[in-house]
C-alpha cells in the first residue's frame, strides 16, 4: 500500500505481471501474428473488458450477473448506430426509396430517421452514450433490485431475463434496430476507413490501451477501502450494513462499473468486427462472458484478461475444425473450472507457479517475469493454428491483493 514511485512499482512483482501482459499484447502478439489474426485477438480483448467488470462485480462483490451481454450490446449498438449513420449518406443510399437513412430502415418501410437515432449523428454524443447508456440501465436495474435486497441467484435470473428481453426487443423491432441481422456494413469512423488492415491494427492498439486504463481503474478501486468493502460485502453483508454502510449503494456502484467496462468493450467490438448483432448480446453470449471470467480466475483482473483471450482463442481454434463440438467443450470446461479449480487459472497459478517463482525471485530478483516466459515458450512449440496462445498458460498473472 505504500505509495512508491511508478518505476519502483513496475519492478515489484505485481508490476512485472502488468509488464508481462503489456509486453505480450503490445510486442509479442503484433510481431507473431498477421493483421487478420491480430484483429481477432483485438476482438477477444473486447471481451476482456466484460471479464474485468465481472471480476469486480461477481468475484469481489459476489453479485453474479448473467446479463453482461446486455451492457456489452448497448455499448456496441451505440457505436454501431453512429457508424451506420455515417455509412448511410444520401449518396451511398441513393437507390433507396428514402435516401439518407440506414438501409434496413428503408427495407422496413420507415421513411424518416427515428428520434432516438438522431443524436447518434454526433460522435461526442456517441462516446458518452457508449458508457452512459449501459450505466443508466445498470443504475435502474441496480436501484430496483438492490434497494429491495434482491440478490444471489434471484438477481442472476433477473439479469438473464433482461438479456432475453433485450434480444427479443432488438429482433422484434427490425425497422429500428436491424433485427436479427444486426447493424451491418459499417465502413468509416469520421471518414477513416475501419475495414483496412492498418485501421484494424490501429484499433487493436487502441483496445489494448483502453484495456490497461480499465485494468488500472479496477486495480485502484481494489486497493482502496472501497475494494475492501466490496470483498467484505460478499461474505458478511450484514456486518457491513451494521458497520454503517449503505450496502445497496455499493452494489449499485460496482454493477454500474461493470456495465461501463462492458459498454466500452462492446463499442470496441463493433469497431473491430465491423458490425453488431443480437447474437453477441443474448443469454448464451452473456453466460460465455461469465465463463471467460471464471476460467481466468474470478478474483483476478489480470486472470480475467487471459481467460477471455484463451477461451476465445480455443473457441476459434475449435470452431474451425469441429464447430458442432464447441458448446460441449465449453460446458465441460466450465464444469471443470467449478469442480477442480474454482479460482480459475489465476488460482492455479497462485498455488503452483508462485512458490516456484518465489524461489526464482530469491535467486535472481530482477529477471523473474521474462525468464519464466523464455523458459516455457520453447517447451511447447505450437503445432497447429489456434494453439498459438498456449505458451501463455504458464504466464498467468494473478492480481495479488
Amino acid at each position, binding site marked *: 500500500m505504500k505509495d512508491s514511485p511508478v518505476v519502483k512499482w513496475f519492478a515489484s512483482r505485481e508490476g512485472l505481471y502488468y509488464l508481462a501482459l503489456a509486453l505480450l499484447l503490445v510486442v509479442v502478439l503484433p510481431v507473431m501474428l498477421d493483421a487478420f489474426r491480430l484483429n481477432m485477438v483485438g476482438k477477444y480483448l473486447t471481451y476482456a473488458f466484460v471479464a474485468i467488470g465481472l471480476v469486480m462485480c461477481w468475484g469481489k462483490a459476489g453479485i453474479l450477473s448473467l446479463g453482461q451481454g446486455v451492457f456489452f450490446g448497448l455499448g456496441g449498438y451505440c457505436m454501431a448506430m453512429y457508424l451506420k449513420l455515417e455509412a448511410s449518406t444520401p449518396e451511398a443510399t441513393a437507390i433507396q426509396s428514402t435516401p439518407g437513412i440506414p438501409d434496413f430502415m428503408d427495407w422496413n418501410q420507415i421513411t424518416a430517421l427515428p428520434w432516438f437515432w438522431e443524436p447518434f449523428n454526433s460522435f461526442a454524443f456517441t462516446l458518452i452514450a457508449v458508457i452512459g447508456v449501459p450505466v443508466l440501465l445498470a443504475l435502474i436495474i441496480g436501484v430496483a433490485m438492490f434497494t429491495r435486497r434482491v440478490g444471489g441467484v434471484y438477481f442472476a435470473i433477473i439479469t438473464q431475463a433482461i438479456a432475453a428481453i433485450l434480444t427479443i426487443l432488438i429482433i422484434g423491432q427490425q425497422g429500428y434496430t436491424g433485427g436479427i441481422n444486426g447493424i451491418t456494413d459499417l465502413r468509416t469512423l469520421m471518414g477513416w476507413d475501419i475495414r483496412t488492415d492498418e485501421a484494424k491494427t490501429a484499433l487493436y492498439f487502441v483496445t489494448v490501451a483502453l484495456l490497461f486504463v480499465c485494468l488500472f481503474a479496477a486495480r485502484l478501486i481494489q486497493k482502496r477501502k472501497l475494494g475492501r468493502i466490496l470483498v467484505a460485502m*460478499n461474505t*458478511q453483508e450484514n456486518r457491513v450494513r451494521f458497520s*454503517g454502510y449503505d450496502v445497496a449503494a455499493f452494489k449499485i456502484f460496482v454493477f454500474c462499473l461493470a456495465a461501463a467496462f462492458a459498454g466500452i468493450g462492446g463499442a470496441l467490438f463493433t469497431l473491430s468486427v465491423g458490425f453488431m448483432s443480437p447474437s453477441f448480446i443474448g443469454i448464451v453470449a452473456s453466460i460465455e462472458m461469465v465463463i471467460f471470467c471464471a476460467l481466468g480466475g474470478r478474483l483476478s483482473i489480470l486472470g480475467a484478461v487471459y481467460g477471455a483471450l484463451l477461451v476465445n482463442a480455443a473457441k476459434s481454434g475449435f470452431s474451425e475444425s469441429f464447430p458442432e463440438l464447441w458448446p460441449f467443450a465449453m460446458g465441460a470446461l466450465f464444469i471443470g473450472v467449478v469442480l477442480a479449480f474454482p479460482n480459475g487459472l489465476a488460482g492455479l497459478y497462485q498455488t503452483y507457479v508462485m512458490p516456484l517463482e518465489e524461489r526464482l525471485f530469491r535467486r535472481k530478483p530482477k529477471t523473474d517475469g521474462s525468464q519464466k516466459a523464455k523458459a516455457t515458450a520453447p517447451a511447447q512449440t505450437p503445432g497447429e493454428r489456434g494453439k498459438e496462445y498456449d505458451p501463455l498458460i504458464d504466464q498467468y498473472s494473478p492480481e495479488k491483493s
Partner: protein
Amino acid sequence: MKAAKSKSKDFLLAVEGLTVSFDGFKAVDDLSFYLDPNEIRVIIGPNGAGKTTVLDLICGKTRATSGSIRFQGRELTKMKEHQIVHSGVGRKFQTPSVFEDLTVFENLEVSYPQGHSVMGALAFKRDLAVVEEIESVARTIFLEDMLEQPASLLSHGQKQWLEIGMLLIQKPKLIMLDEPVAGMSVVERKKTAELLKVITREHTVLVIEHDMQFVGDIADRVTVMHQGKVLSEGSIEHVKSDPKVIEVYLGH
C-alpha cells in the same frame, strides 16, 4: 430510578410498547425498558424469549410492528440500518461475523467511521490517525500482534473480540452484544469480562448472555425476558430471588 420513567429524555435508550409479530406470533410483546448512560444491562431468558429479536429491532434488522425505540431522543424505528449505526448504535452478532478474507487491520479499517459513502470509500486515505486508532483498539481487544493476520486464522474467541473491536472503532454510544462469551474458554471469558469493564467506561452496553456467572460478573442490572415480555428487572440478586424467574428457569 424507576421514578425517572416519565421524563425519558434522561435515558440513553428508551424502548416503549415494542411489539413485533411474525405471522401472528408475537416474538416481542409490548416490551418496555430503559437504559441509563454508561450502564451495563444484561438481558437473560430462556430460548425463544425474544432476546435476539429485541437487538434486531433496535439496530433495524427487524422492523417493529408497533411501539417506539428512542435513542438520545431520536426515534430509531423509522431509520435505515446504516443511519442507526451513524446515530451511535453498534451491534455484534451471535456468531462471529468478521470479514474472513481481510486481515485484522483491514477488518478494523472497514469499520473506521469515515468514508462511508461510495466516493468517500474511494477517497479514504490510510493516514497516521487511522493507523494509530486501529492499533489502539487492537491493544484493547488483545489482538495487537495479529494485525497482519487474515481474520480467518483467528480462534473463535479472537474473532469475537475482533468483532467487538470493530464496534469500538465506530465509537458508538450504545454497544449491543449477543452472547459474547458463547464458545469461549475460561481464560477467554475472564479477558472478555475485563474488556467489557473497560468498554463501559465510555459506552453503554446491552448484552444478551446465558452464562449466569458471567452475568453476575459484569451486569449493573438484569432484565429477564420470557415469551416476549419482561418478567423481572433489577440487580442480579433481586432477579435470582424473584419467584417468577425461578419458576421459568427451574420450575419444571
